[in-house]
């Protein structure tokens, strides 16, 4: 049983440089816990006390999980989860 997770450049220090890793779980939250067990520290870059971090985008297949159920979004075998840091900034 495997869910493919695509990792952006800036988080590949947690995956020994791998741009893609695999995990298991029936929700996104469970999947992130599973990934963290294999790639320690990764989860903390994605999740804080309030849930998914504000400036990190996580997609289940083609959809931003914020429009689904966040960490409670169900995931299954064959799904692809993609992580992209938000691109943002400002004048001050």
């Amino acid at each position, binding site marked *: 049983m495997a869910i493919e997770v695509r990792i*952006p450049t800036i988080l590949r220090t947690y995956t020994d440089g791998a741009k893609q890793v695999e995990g298991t779980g029936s929700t996104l939250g469970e999947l992130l816990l599973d990934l963290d067990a294999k790639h320690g520290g990764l989860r903390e870059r994605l999740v804080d006390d309030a849930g998914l971090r504000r400036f990190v985008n996580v997609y289940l297949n083609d959809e931003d999980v*914020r429009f689904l159920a966040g960490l409670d979004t169900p995931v299954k075998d064959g799904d692809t989860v993609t992580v992209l840091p938000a*691109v*943002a*900034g*400002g*004048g001050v």
Partner: protein
Amino acid sequence: MLTLPKQIYDQIVAHARRDHPDEACGIIAGPAGSDRPERFIPMTNAARSPTFYEFDSTEQFQVWKDMDDKDEEPVVLYHSHTATEAYPSRTDVSYASEPGAHYVLVSTRDEDQAEFRSYRIIDNQITEEPVTVVE
């Protein structure tokens, strides 16, 4: 050092002027590993603010997927400052998440003269670099 075609330089400045007084933002994609900015991709500023920008998350996903399909990467990430200098702010540095990219800043604070500067932002360090515009 950032080398870019004049046409792309002009497109970036025009985009910044067009969206003023909101910040404009976008990317220039190029073949992965080439450091050549070739494809101009203006992005929607989902924040629509004169002092903040953020890519729309769904649009960002589509663009990143498209680049991946074409074996490209984001060579330049650009945005404009509408009232301050063309220098990365603390916010810009804290959100800089593409260590391989050139961060281009355009300031539209003067209506006649746009400021256009480029930087690398790696591990919270800003390093300005020269910009060469080629025909």
